[in-house]
């Protein structure tokens, strides 16, 4: 039985010569943030807080997390934040957020991720995505890499899972 081809909206994030795809269904909205560059020492990845409709959201530095993980340096600006509903994330992440101490005012409903400003929504054919090669598939999935897409011989887009990536980041914060 052949699977009908379908397309879906993805956020395409370009930074440091690399490109990442995030399923549009994994975040609620995005907003501009003033503080696009880190100031002083912060807890690893816990970048700041931002206001979102009267709620105070924890802003995680996903921009730096990707650089560290994929071993590249980016000098581009990162004035964009993705707002993610905690209820859409796994129990593991939800538990970590609820266990964070000393953040009484911080929303347990949403969190935000600082990402590159070079981001846009694209409608992409699912059939153009590939899983990682079999030998790397399992470890990739565990780390939050669902697959990839070659856009040219010399360019790849990594299809990443926000839930797994957030879990890894937050484990580092505990």
């Amino acid at each position: 039985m052949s699977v009908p081809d379908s397309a879906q909206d993805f956020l395409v994030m370009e930074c440091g010569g690399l490109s990442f795809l995030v399923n549009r269904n994994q975040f609620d909205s995005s907003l501009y943030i003033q503080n696009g560059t880190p100031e002083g020492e912060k807890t690893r990845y816990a970048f700041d807080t931002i206001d979102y409709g009267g709620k105070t959201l924890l802003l995680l530095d996903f921009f730096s997390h990707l650089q560290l993980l994929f071993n590249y340096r980016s000098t581009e600006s990162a004035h964009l934040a993705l707002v993610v509903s905690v209820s859409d994330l796994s129990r593991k992440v939800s538990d970590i957020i609820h266990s964070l101490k000393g953040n009484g005012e911080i929303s347990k409903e949403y969190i935000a991720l600082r990402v590159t400003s070079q981001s846009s929504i694209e409608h992409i054919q699912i059939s153009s995505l590939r899983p990682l090669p079999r030998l790397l598939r399992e470890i990739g999935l565990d780390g939050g890499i669902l697959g990839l897409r070659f856009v040219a011989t010399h360019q790849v887009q990594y299809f990443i899972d926000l839930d797994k990536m957030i879990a890894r980041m937050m484990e580092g914060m505990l």
Partner: protein
Amino acid sequence: MNNEDIFESLQQNVDEGSRGEEERPKKIVKFLVFLMGDRRFTVYADLIREIVLDLPLFYVPFVPSYVRGFINRHGEPYTVLDLNVLFNQQLLESSTFLILSDTTNQASFLISDVAEIMKIDEENIHMITSRSERQQFVMGSITDLEGKEILILDIPEIFKRLGKDVGS
């Protein structure tokens, strides 16, 4: 069975054995010999699909250092293993890839260069029966015309090691 019968039986075995040797056609096996740094290794040629040059290498996190990433082979990702890291703990500076014909595992080896294709009589392939730690990824050897030994890589053992290292 008395000794006479036993001897006759032994004689028969020897005769049949030598007759077998005369009749058995030589089986020739092809090996692809390649360079990794200045050392030569070989693999059965039928395990290799192709040799490709100058493809960009894409990084993958979470993997052991001998996994250098993957390449784009006709739109399909192929894992790139740097055996120089596995054997000598040194990165191999190269962009020549030996693509394995095993399409299930979609893997390739980073090599310095292809040396030659050798046709070897099956009898001259020396398989090893027990391995030291250093020989973990070697299944045997062949010798070239100058009598120098070239180690045959054991690809399933290399995959087994990777499976163990990445927990799959």
